[in-house]
């Protein structure tokens, strides 16, 4: 288990969702909003193409946070995010973060999920019990 100090970077998580990932996430989550799975619908409402589910990207942020605690799900006590940019399939997502505070066995991580310069999730704060 990592010994983390304020200001430390956490290991980056890099994931490239394939073209059909939004379909699988829709099935797994029950969120079939057509902006995520139907290119014609997405374009008709002014989007460049289908976009990733924000909660899928939040799932990746949660994954990077639990990875700090040996991938134990109960280590993640709280996660708060702001959705900003839209995420696109077939583009690499990089989840990165730094340690904001340490209190006993509990760390708070500031996290960002980005595709290139496009920060899709920012001001994410994860509280993890190590």
């Amino acid at each position: 288990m990592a010994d983390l100090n304020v200001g430390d970077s956490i290991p980056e998580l890099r994931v490239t969702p394939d073209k059909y990932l939004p379909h699988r996430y829709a099935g797994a989550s029950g969120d079939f909003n057509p902006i995520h799975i139907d290119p014609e619908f997405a374009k008709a409402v002014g989007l460049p193409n289908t976009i990733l589910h924000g909660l899928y990207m939040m799932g990746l942020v949660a994954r990077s946070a639990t990875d700090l605690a040996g991938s134990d799900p109960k280590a993640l006590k709280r996660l708060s995010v702001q959705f900003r940019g839209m995420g696109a399939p077939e583009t690499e997502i990089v989840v990165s973060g730094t340690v904001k505070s340490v209190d006993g066995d509990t760390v708070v991580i500031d996290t960002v999920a980005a595709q290139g310069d496009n920060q899709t999730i920012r001001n994410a704060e994860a509280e993890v019990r190590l």
Partner: protein
Amino acid sequence: MSIKTEAIGKEWPATTYEVGKEKVGEYARVIGLDNPVYFDREAAKAAGYRDVVAPPMFCVVYSAPALAPAMFDPEVGMNFAAMVHGGQEFEWGEPACSGDEITTVAKCLEIFEKDGKGFYVFETRSTNQNGDEVVKGTWTNIVRGV
């Protein structure tokens, strides 16, 4: 500015969701999680869980159905064409495991206008069959041009 605020404090009927082993595994695979506690009952029990355990963010699967009627309630009156999911917070308690019956109640916490945008903040509280709180969610939707 004519944002409707009479729904603040309103609660909607509870929904119940039974967590299933294969549904947990399906969700975990999509997120790319490979800890066997999400797939294998014996591995989950060896790690101290009652059964296959749900990844934390699986909470959206069992809590979102309680929120749907709130989102579509005319008393709330959100304009979906101009709505984005602006922010989300979850605080987890007791882990959710396969076989759990999770009951979720949604409530409207806040509706306010800021910088020409409408902010609609909902809370979901999910408890398991033993009455233990599993997760509390705070969902913020932002509507442009209210």
